[in-house]
């Protein structure tokens, strides 16, 4: 009986279609009807016009081929991407509701470079991101990432961005009406593709608070508990290297033009004149946010990340001790160099 189907192509095709549709309906179509496939974290905002232009460039350049955008709920992964700084425990890894406006999702399937889901928290410095895109090897010498310097000279087109905003609105992303969209898109006038891509990358993961809890308690009078013990200084050097501080601040703490300031000169957070050890301690522990508390401007949009979540206070003090030691060397070496020039 059933054997007859192999001589009846129409019946065969109908049965084959139903068989193919079974799994299709169960795992693709039916879930789509469930609310759990359309979650939205509270306070999720659609991308700004500039960020959306950046996402378009992220798509165009195929960034998704090497960078994922999902931090999985695995211990080592949460630690690597600093999800453990999240204000709420569930923010430690990527949440379904963060992607509600992502047409399409850009989670990727290959991590040739690091995951970028929390990049907005991890490397919040515009300068770092732009310099890195322009010449990755200057900041990460052994990196295999191509240079995207050409983005610096390409200008954005507000009309095109407006058309993109309108298309997304039609898909249900809450952008305003046509006039409102035009007003939003005006933001990109005069901006470069580099500005846009950096803005997008810095928006990643920001819908959830992963920056730690509140302000840091700072006591400028507190002193380094171990003083300048040589073993402690050596440990500071070790921590500095292991944390990759040199990637931004230079291997010897001299800073890098346009990326991050020197840690051994007489300027601290953009103002000439030093501050006590405890101020250094606070910036390492709390990141750029601490600048306000210290009352100094620092580099605009400065992107110092907070290390309080992963370094013990002792480790941070050790780094401060090492930095102070370096400053001492610098101060001692200067007259010597000048003397050499005069000769």
């Amino acid at each position, binding site marked *: 009986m059933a054997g007859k189907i192999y001589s009846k192509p129409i019946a065969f095709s109908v049965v084959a279609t139903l068989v*193919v549709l079974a799994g*299709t309906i169960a795992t*693709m179509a039916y879930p789509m009807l469930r609310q759990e496939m359309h979650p939205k974290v509270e306070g999720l905002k659609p991308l700004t016009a500039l960020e959306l232009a950046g996402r378009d460039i992220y*798509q165009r350049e195929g*960034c998704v081929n090497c960078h994922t955008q999902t931090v999985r709920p695995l211990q080592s992964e949460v630690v690597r991407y600093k999800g453990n700084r999240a204000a709420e425990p569930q923010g430690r890894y990527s949440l379904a509701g963060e992607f509600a406006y992502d047409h399409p*999702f850009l989670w990727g399937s290959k991590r040739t470079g690091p995951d970028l889901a929390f990049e907005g928290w991890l490397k919040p410095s515009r300068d770092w991101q732009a310099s890195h895109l322009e010449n990755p090897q200057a900041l990460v010498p052994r990196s295999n990432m191509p240079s995207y310097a050409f983005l610096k000279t390409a200008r954005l087109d507000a009309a095109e961005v407006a058309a993109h905003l309108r298309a997304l609105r039609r898909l249900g992303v809450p952008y305003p009406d046509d006039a409102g969209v035009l007003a939003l898109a005006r933001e990109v006038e005069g901006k470069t593709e580099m500005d846009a891509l950096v803005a997008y990358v810095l928006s990643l993961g920001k819908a959830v608070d992963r920056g730690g809890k509140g302000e840091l308690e700072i006591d400028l009078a507190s002193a380094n508990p171990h003083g300048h013990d040589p073993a402690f200084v050596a440990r500071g050097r070790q921590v500095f290297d292991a944390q990759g501080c040199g990637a931004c601040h230079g291997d010897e703490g001299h800073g890098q033009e346009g990326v991050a300031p020197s840690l051994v000169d007489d300027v601290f957070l953009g103002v000439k004149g030093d501050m006590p050890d405890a101020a250094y301690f606070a910036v390492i522990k709390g990141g750029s946010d601490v600048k306000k508390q210290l009352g100094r401007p620092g580099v605009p949009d400065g992107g110092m990340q907070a290390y309080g979540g992963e370094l013990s206070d002792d480790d941070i003090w050790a780094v401060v001790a090492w930095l102070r030691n370096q400053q001492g060397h610098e101060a001692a070496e200067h007259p010597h160099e000048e003397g050499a020039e005069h000769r």
Partner: protein
Amino acid sequence: MNDYRYDHRTVEGFILSSIFWGVVGILVGLLISVQLWAPAANFPPYLTFGRLRAVHTNGLAFGLGVGAIFGLSFWIVMRLCKRPLLFLKLARAQLWLFNVGILAAAVTLAMGYTQSLEYAELEWPLDIAIVVLWVMFAVNVFGTILKRNEEQMYVSLWYVIATVIAVAVLYLVNNLSMPAGLWKSYPAFAGVNSANVQWWYGHNAVGFVFTTPILAMFYYFLPKSTGLPIWSHRLSIVAFWSLVFAYLWTGAHHLVYTPLPDWIQTLAIVFTLFLIAPSWGSVVNGYYTVGQDWGRMRSNYLTKFFILGITFYGLQTVQGPTQALRVVSQLIHYTDWVPGHVHMGTMGWVTMVTAASIYYVIPKIYGTTIYSEKIANIHFWLVLVGQLLFSITMWITGIRQGWMWKATDADGKLVYRNFIDTVTGNYPYWHTRTLAGIIFTVGMLFFVFNVLMTIRKGRALERERQAATQTPAAVTAA
């Protein structure tokens, strides 16, 4: 033997187009393999890894893969239906549209026009062209089958029909999008839902482009080449229905540990494990078919292509389900292990069986024999060695890097905190992969040479035959 006219020119056209795009796709693959360890080999904006990877995957999946599938499916359909294609001109138009489409695909992808959905990168105007192509293909396949001169439909026809139906459903749903310009659109689905639809599509693109049409070739060309009948018809039936049923449930195994609801992940993992059974149904059937006379491995040069092909299919379909397990996925997902896995399937299974089928068909078209069995054997060993070196290298470095990502000390701190430290260890393996790719490419060039020389030989023979039939006529006239 059969005196009805087959449209061999269209079949040959698809095979030659497929070979051409195959060479292009493989060379792009070599370039991007170099870009992984030599960033200076990127030439922004058009020739960067980010843009070219899609050119590589689309060029080979749609250019080499689908091109060969079109041509060889037509051959299979005509032979099993014992009649020419119902619409000859339509098939010829399909051949032209196919080539224009693949060219446009390669150019637009290099220009950065992409939907960012894996294996569905092409922007909406090309999506429409692909739908038209597929309808043309479907009309000829179904039309020819409906008007066939053979009562029973053989196994290969089932697989061709399943391919036509499933790809149509998959492609239409996953490419639904809102155009925002001529070369820009936003997919209709968002977030987790977008991910789920994409991998339902992505995994079944593997299922219905790299599996079912290749099985159609396998079930047809293996018995044809060896002269041995398929061992068990009943096993073919069971394997077919369970394969096309189970495949569609498994897409979410690409999304293990992502924010996709757990139940969808688990369901996918379970069905993925089940999928071993129907896959191995065909493996077992293939082995026992040749098992009727293992001497064919020596006496018939094509047998080893099919047997090694089905062996890699067997390995692939055990490795895949293993990867779906959560405990394995958390280690190897996102690493080079996965490209290693994919390339065993494509370089081992798909190209082995497709190349053997082409070796079978081209001489048949001209009523001659292959130009050189020796070159075919060199081709075989080079692609085998190249593919093994490629895959094994990638598995090792995948485990290596996955382990480095996970390594923590007693305090739960990362041992390799700087991501770049886990990348640099890949470089020696990436060098080896390029070497493996070169070996594979040389093997494929031997194949291309062999096919072209066979065609040349065949065309010379055709001219001789024409001359032979014309000469007596000339004599009569005189």
